[in-house]
């Protein structure tokens, strides 16, 4: 059962990722990324991470991707023009991607002592997770909330900057 579910959702993941590369319209890429993220949530569940599976759907497939689709709609992003890209990307980028993948795959396949994941291995409950999070790692958790607050302020400041100058442009002649 685990094998069947793994193969099914791994195939969804890879198909979504490849579709993201092949599509030329950003909204299609965004929708394939949602497929990838939701399938990853199922894989997390297979690995016994129930809280992360829920968080993946809420945070990634929900919040982040809605933000992406909103920006695609807001900017009215059209079909992308396919160009060859820079010479550096072709000369250095693609060989190094192949090299990195070859190295990682070799290391993984020759690593000793990697076991197998079964459905009966037990799940990490949210209770266990919260015990570690709120006892040992309380300070990083609180610092993250400050980070998110700063990110909100930064996003508002960046996105409203153009609007502010437009207002100033309108107001300046009227003031004179």
């Amino acid at each position, binding site marked *: 059962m685990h094998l069947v579910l793994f193969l099914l959702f791994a195939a969804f993941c890879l198909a979504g*990722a490849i579709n993201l590369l092949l599509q030329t319209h950003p909204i299609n890429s965004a929708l394939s990324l949602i497929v990838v993220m939701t399938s990853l949530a199922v894989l*997390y569940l297979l690995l016994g991470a129930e809280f992360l599976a829920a968080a993946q759907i809420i945070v990634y497939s929900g919040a982040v991707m809605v933000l992406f689709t909103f920006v695609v709609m807001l900017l009215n992003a059209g079909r992308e023009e396919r160009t060859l890209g820079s010479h550096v990307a072709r000369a250095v980028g693609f060989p190094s991607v192949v090299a990195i993948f070859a190295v990682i795959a070799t290391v993984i396949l020759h690593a000793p002592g990697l076991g197998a994941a079964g459905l009966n291995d037990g799940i990490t409950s949210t209770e266990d997770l919260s015990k570690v999070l709120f006892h040992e790692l309380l300070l990083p958790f609180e610092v993250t909330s400050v980070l998110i607050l700063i990110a909100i302020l930064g996003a508002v400041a960046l996105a409203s900057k153009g609007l502010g100058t437009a207002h100033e442009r309108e107001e300046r002649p009227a003031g004179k």
Partner: protein
Amino acid sequence: MNPLLNEVPIAWYLLLSATLFCLGVIGFLIKRNLITVFMSIELMLNAVNLSFVTFAHEWHAVKGQIFVFFVMMVAAAEAAVGLAIIIAIFRARATLAVDRIDLMKL
């Protein structure tokens, strides 16, 4: 039921994670739209999260999952700021094609 059907080698999860990461890098290199380039970065972050969860399962370490939680939070903050930057760029240059946003290119 066949017992072999009930378990999956950990290496397969790690290979899937490596493949997704490399697809993300390829997307970063070939995509010519600012938003899709940003989506490729999110794909890479997700691939790394998968390997974190796999190792947390393999070694029964809860802290691996907590690390994924922090990565998700930072990625959400990064997405908010990054998309705001994309909106600001679109206002200034009226394009999303990365070939035309080359002011800082050597």
